[in-house]
């Protein structure tokens, strides 16, 4: 059977090997599609009922649309088992119209990394890893500027500068909500006070020079490892690379706005079965192994730094992740466990999410490059509504 995804083949080699040991009669072949092209490629090939894809990786917020298009096999018979095996947020993101369409494989969160040399130069105390002592964005902006005054080039950088995934918590923290409301989850709500205040703050971090405008996309972590940034908000996947770099760093919870709520991103990848597949039984067996079996799920994280979705696998995994950063990451397992259960705020479940995410990405890009916030959010509302009319 064939698995299609956007990861490097070495990432899934361990889980495929572990499965083969248990099921010598099933051979799993993995094919990689570049990350940026995964969604268009899936749309075209699944739409043409391509039976050479049996199982594929599903970006969790895109699940509703894929299910609505008939591109996912109904897995509702596994509901109870799944509910018992994974955290609630990881179960609910795989539901659409009360049916289960995919099984969660990975989970995620966001953390704030800091450059110790930069903070030392400015005489700023290191932030604590204890979620009870979470910093505020206001404080980070102030300290970031102080670090810049003391010689660090940039005060703050978010890893995915234009991604809804990472920017949603800014608005959520100020009470702006996810941006999608309504019974059908097809009403845009991004011009409320919370969203406007959050985006104004975000815009100011660029206009004041606290964050650099030139670097975009998901290409920001090399800037932190070259020592040019004081505070960097990124994912657990950065820990492996940062541990290999030669800068001295530490990790703390993702900040929130003073007086606001604490919200952190969550969610990652599920895997789903192609209804046109001719090897559904084998695909299902492999999928159950990779998601519901703790050993199988853990094996999906052997070759990469990502949190497994399975609760039992997470318990095994977090101490390993904490050890990866050595003394720099003491307390990390507790922090991630806390964020997963207390502050994790999933992306909205809506059939219009794909259009929403793409248009919001453009709005974020314009806002950080200096577009007036309220006008640009109004324009985005109009664009999203127009796009949704065609659904």
């Amino acid at each position, binding site marked *: 059977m064939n698995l299609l995804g956007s*990861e490097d083949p070495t990432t899934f080699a361990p889980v495929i090997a572990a499965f083969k040991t248990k099921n010598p009669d099933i051979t799993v*072949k993995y*094919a990689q599609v*570049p990350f940026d*092209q995964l969604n268009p490629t899936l749309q075209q090939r699944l739409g043409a009922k391509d039976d050479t894809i049996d199982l594929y990786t599903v970006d969790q917020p895109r699940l509703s649309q894929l299910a609505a298009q008939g591109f996912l096999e109904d897995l509702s018979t596994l509901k109870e088992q799944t509910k018992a095996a994974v955290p609630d947020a990881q179960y609910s993101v795989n539901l659409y119209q009360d049916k289960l369409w995919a099984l969660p494989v990975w989970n995620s969160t966001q953390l704030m990394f800091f450059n110790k040399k930069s903070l030392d130069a400015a005489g700023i105390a290191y932030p604590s890893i204890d979620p009870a002592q979470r910093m505020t964005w206001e404080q980070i902006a102030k300290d970031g500027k102080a670090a810049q005054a003391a010689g660090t080039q940039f005060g703050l950088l978010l890893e995915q500068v234009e991604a809804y995934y990472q920017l949603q918590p800014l608005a959520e923290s100020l009470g702006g909500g996810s941006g999608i409301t309504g019974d059908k989850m097809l009403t845009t709500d991004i011009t409320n006070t919370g969203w406007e205040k959050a985006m104004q703050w975000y815009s100011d971090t660029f206009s004041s020079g606290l964050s650099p405008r030139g670097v975009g996309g998901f290409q920001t972590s090399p*800037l932190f490892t070259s020592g040019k940034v004081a505070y960097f908000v990124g994912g657990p996947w950065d820990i492996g690379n940062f541990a290999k770099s030669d800068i001295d760093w530490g990790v703390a919870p993702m900040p929130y706005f003073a007086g606001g709520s604490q919200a952190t991103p969550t969610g990652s990848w599920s895997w789903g079965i192609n209804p046109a597949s001719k090897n559904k039984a084998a695909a299902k067996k492999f999928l159950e192994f990779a998601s519901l079996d703790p050993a199988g799920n853990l094996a999906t994280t052997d070759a990469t730094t990502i949190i497994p979705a399975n609760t039992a696998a997470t318990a095994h995994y977090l101490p390993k992740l904490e050890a990866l950063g050595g003394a720099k990451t003491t307390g990390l397992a507790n922090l991630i466990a806390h964020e997963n259960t207390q502050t994790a705020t999933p992306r909205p479940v809506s059939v219009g999410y794909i259009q929403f995410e793409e248009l919001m990405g453009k709005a974020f890009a314009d806002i950080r490059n200096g577009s007036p916030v309220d006008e640009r959010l109004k324009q985005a509302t109009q664009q999203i509504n127009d796009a949704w009319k065609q659904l």
Partner: protein
Amino acid sequence: MSAATAHTGTPRRRTLAYLGLSVLGACIGLLFLLPLWWTFVNSLRPGGDTFRYLNPLQWETFFTATPTLSNYAALLHSDLGLATLNSVIVSAITVVVGLAICSMAAFALAAIPFRGSGAVFIVVVVSFLIPFDAIAIPLANLFRDWNLQNTYAGLILPGLGNGMAIFLLRTFFLAIPKDLVEAGRLDGLGWWGIFRRIYLPLSVPSLIGAGLTLFLFQWQSYMWPLLNGTDSQHILGPIALSNLQGQFNVDYGVMFAGSIVLTVIPLAIIIGFQRYFIQSVSTTGLK
């Protein structure tokens, strides 16, 4: 006296202006080279150092005192080697078979009078005015029905009949004097003989130009192999390069090393055939 000064002054001024323009031209040329050079220098540095010397600009931005080949060594563990080989195979077959098909089509349109040749020519022109990306999706569905998915044939076929190459060759063929055709006829040559013994030997520069067009179409092929469901055995260069960019982080050093490898091959081919290529474009339609 003043006239004599003016006489010697003008050529000197001209020389100065000429020198000035040449230096300016060279500087502008170097500016075009700069991004490629920067990519090359950074392919010799660890990925974590890519942005270290970017701001403010310094001599280390464009040079490195400690070059390392580790990024190129890392490429050996990726799919890029196989992908480059596949790209070379696919491009080479496309050039050879494609040139045979396109030159015969161009010959038929330029030399053989037949009813409807104008209409056929219009179809050819329209075929290269429509972007390939626009027809790629329905074409991929057809290829799937024909079981050409994930095969070399599936990768090569769309590149063979290239409207642009036919157009270039036809224009060149039209300029070949008809007297030569008649002389050939008198010597007993058929259409095939005229094509093989008169047209082809006279058209080497334009064949090279058309060959480069065919080559570049396949060398840059990105969307088609993805739609065609290519697996890791049939992977092509641009896809392997894009796959080097992970979802969560990018090692720019390795990425740049891969880009350099994929740039050097067409660069060598184009520089090797540059003389003919310029000749073919500049003489098409003029002879």
